[in-house]
């Protein structure tokens, strides 16, 4: 069994854990190295300083008291278990005084030397390490002043020993910690992957779990979920369109087919055939109208490319529609009033906006009784948003129905038989949605007022 296989190296969690461990080991080593170096150097410097001070003290004493005086002091200081080491020799390195038996190692005057020496501790003799300086007194006498550094050596040795342990520990902690950390993050990423796979397998209702920490991953997950919600809504919309198309096209198609079939059942004369065909063609035309309206709603609802929208002069567009309808309104005995502020600009698709105005106006004229009036207005509201409004004085719509009216295919009770009439407002709603415009229905007392307000367009 191989401990590390290549697949493990390629996965992110392994690389993350390894990186984390390496980083930890480097940090610990640097930190410990600094500590070790500081401590050891500091203690060594202290030792050398002490030795220097002692040498200069002894040299001074030699000047004052001569060789005999110096020997006495050295003999004095050499007694007992002190850690200081002394050796005074004649120019031929024969010992005169001190607690070392012989010159420990070859050296030149002024040298710092390190050596091992035999130290009696109780009844035993042990070898200790010492650090010393070789000094030459006037007259050629050699003086060695040193210090037992066995404790320092032991400290250093122990520090070096622990360094290995600490390194090993850092490696284990680093790897372990890195693994835990990497696993924590990657498990969350894996959960996103798992959700994605489940969705691809067809379960659109799946959503990525949030950890609740509101970190980057949570935000990513939230955005993904929002995106999925939107996609699901679009898909549901599409499904509804399909259902609606099926419903609104199948019934008339069936009617059409039945008529042809029944006409051919008995042996009709030419005139009967002709009537049936004319009726069939009229029905086909109505079907086409419905179909076109459905397509247009689909187009508006699917959302055009926002970048393809252009600056639309709402005032002109509305005015043109009002002008188109004015004769028809007059014929129906309805006063069509246009209260249009000039140069109101919005961002949008001119064709769809015109169509929305047409549909609303068409509707308004259809429901307004003769002798009454319809007002078409364009302007800016208190919030600075551009709007157009069509207000009729017909029977209006109960406030509770406002929501329903805007939904596709929902027709008010009783108007179901009027082909296509339900699509008009749905298209308006789709156009509003596409333009991120607000569509508001309100009571015109009497009648219905429909207002579409567009986000403010500051410059053309």
């Amino acid at each position, binding site marked *: 069994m191989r401990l590390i296989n290549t697949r493990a190296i390629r996965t992110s969690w392994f690389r993350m854990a390894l990186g984390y461990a390496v980083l930890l080991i480097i940090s610990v080593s640097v930190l410990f190295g600094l500590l070790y170096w500081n401590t050891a150097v500091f203690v060594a410097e202290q030792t050398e300083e002490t030795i220097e001070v002692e040498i200069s003290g002894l040299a001074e004493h030699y000047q004052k008291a001569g060789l005999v005086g110096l020997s006495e002091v050295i003999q004095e200081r050499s007694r007992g278990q002190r850690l200081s080491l002394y050796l005074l020799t004649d120019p031929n390195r024969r010992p005169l005084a001190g607690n070392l038996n012989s010159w420990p190692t070859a050296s030149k005057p002024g040298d710092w030397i390190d050596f091992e020496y035999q130290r009696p501790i109780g009844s035993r003799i042990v070898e200790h390490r010492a650090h010393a300086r070789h000094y030459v007194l006037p007259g050629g006498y050699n003086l060695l002043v040193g210090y037992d550094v066995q404790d320092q050596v032991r400290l250093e040795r122990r520090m070096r020993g622990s360094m290995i342990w600490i390194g090993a520990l850092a490696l284990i902690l680093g790897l372990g910690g890195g693994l835990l950390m990497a696993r924590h993050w990657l498990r969350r990423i894996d959960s996103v992957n798992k959700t994605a796979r489940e969705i691809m397998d067809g379960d659109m209702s799946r959503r990525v779990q949030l950890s609740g920490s509101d970190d980057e991953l949570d935000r990513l997950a939230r955005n993904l979920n929002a995106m999925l919600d939107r996609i699901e809504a679009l898909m549901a919309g599409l499904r509804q369109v399909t259902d609606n198309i099926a419903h609104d096209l199948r019934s008339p198609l069936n009617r059409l087919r039945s008529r042809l079939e029944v006409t051919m059942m008995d042996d009709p004369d030419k005139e009967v055939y002709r009537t049936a065909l004319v009726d069939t063609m009229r029905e086909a035309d109505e079907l086409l109208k419905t179909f076109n309206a459905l397509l247009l709603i689909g187009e508006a609802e699917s959302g055009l490319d926002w970048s393809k929208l252009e600056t639309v002069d709402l005032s002109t567009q509305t005015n043109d529609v009002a002008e188109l309808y004015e*004769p028809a309104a007059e014929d129906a005995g309805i006063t069509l009033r246009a209260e249009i502020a000039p140069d109101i600009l919005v961002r949008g698709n001119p064709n769809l906006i015109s169509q929305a105005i047409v549909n609303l106006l068409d509707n308004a004229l259809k429901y307004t009784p003769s002798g009454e009036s319809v007002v078409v207005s364009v302007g800016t509201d208190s919030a600075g948003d551009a709007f157009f409004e069509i207000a009729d004085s017909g029977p209006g719509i109960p406030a509770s129905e406002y929501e329903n009216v805007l939904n596709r295919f929902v027709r008010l009770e009783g108007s179901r038989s009027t082909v296509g009439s339900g699509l008009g407002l749905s298209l308006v709603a789709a156009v509003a949605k596409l333009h991120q415009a607000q569509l508001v229905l309100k009571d015109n007392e009497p009648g219905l007022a429909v207002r579409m307000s567009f986000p403010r367009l500051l410059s053309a």
Partner: protein
Amino acid sequence: MRILIVEDDTDAATYIAKALSEAGHVVDMAANGEDALEIASESHEVLIVDRMMPKLDGIQLVEQLRSDGVVTPVLFLSALGKVDDRVEGLRAGGDDYLVKPFAMAELIARVEALGRRKGTPEAQTKLVCGDLEMDLITRDVRRGDIKIDLQPREFKLLEYLMRNATRVVTRTMLLENVWGYHFDPQTNVIDVHISRLRGKIDKDFDKALLETVRGAGYRLNAAD
């Protein structure tokens, strides 16, 4: 007129050919863009081109023809009806764009309007139809000795009808060309405008010039 239909749906092409023949035109057919490049000739006055075809599609065909210097008017037929699709078709060199499904009357009217366009002199300053005259510069409209006052839109409407005099003009053609709308308001708004115009140009005269063509549209006609 001699007309070339380029359409891969042969059933549909046959129906169109039959309708155009009955309207008195001579029709050739091509089943795809490549064949059309071979068949198309100077003698064709209008090309009817389906947008989506195997091999060379409608857009590519028309671009090819235009770059070869062929200026024959082209009417695109398409199942794609979005504004962008229409713009793409016209930009490729098409002269008109009709979305499927369409009424035969609509197709014939548009084809005939396109055929006429070729012969119309560019710098025409005066339009005449019987005793109805329109001066495009002074914007004076007279019938016989009587001056007729028209609103700007009525003027545009009459101008379009006069430019297409003796031909059938459909409601959709009027909406597109006079009002610039590419959708169908599904009501009789155009009829009302026509009847107003009629009130001005025909009401006090013995002979009515503006006829309604059942199931198709309108026609300005001075002949009896």
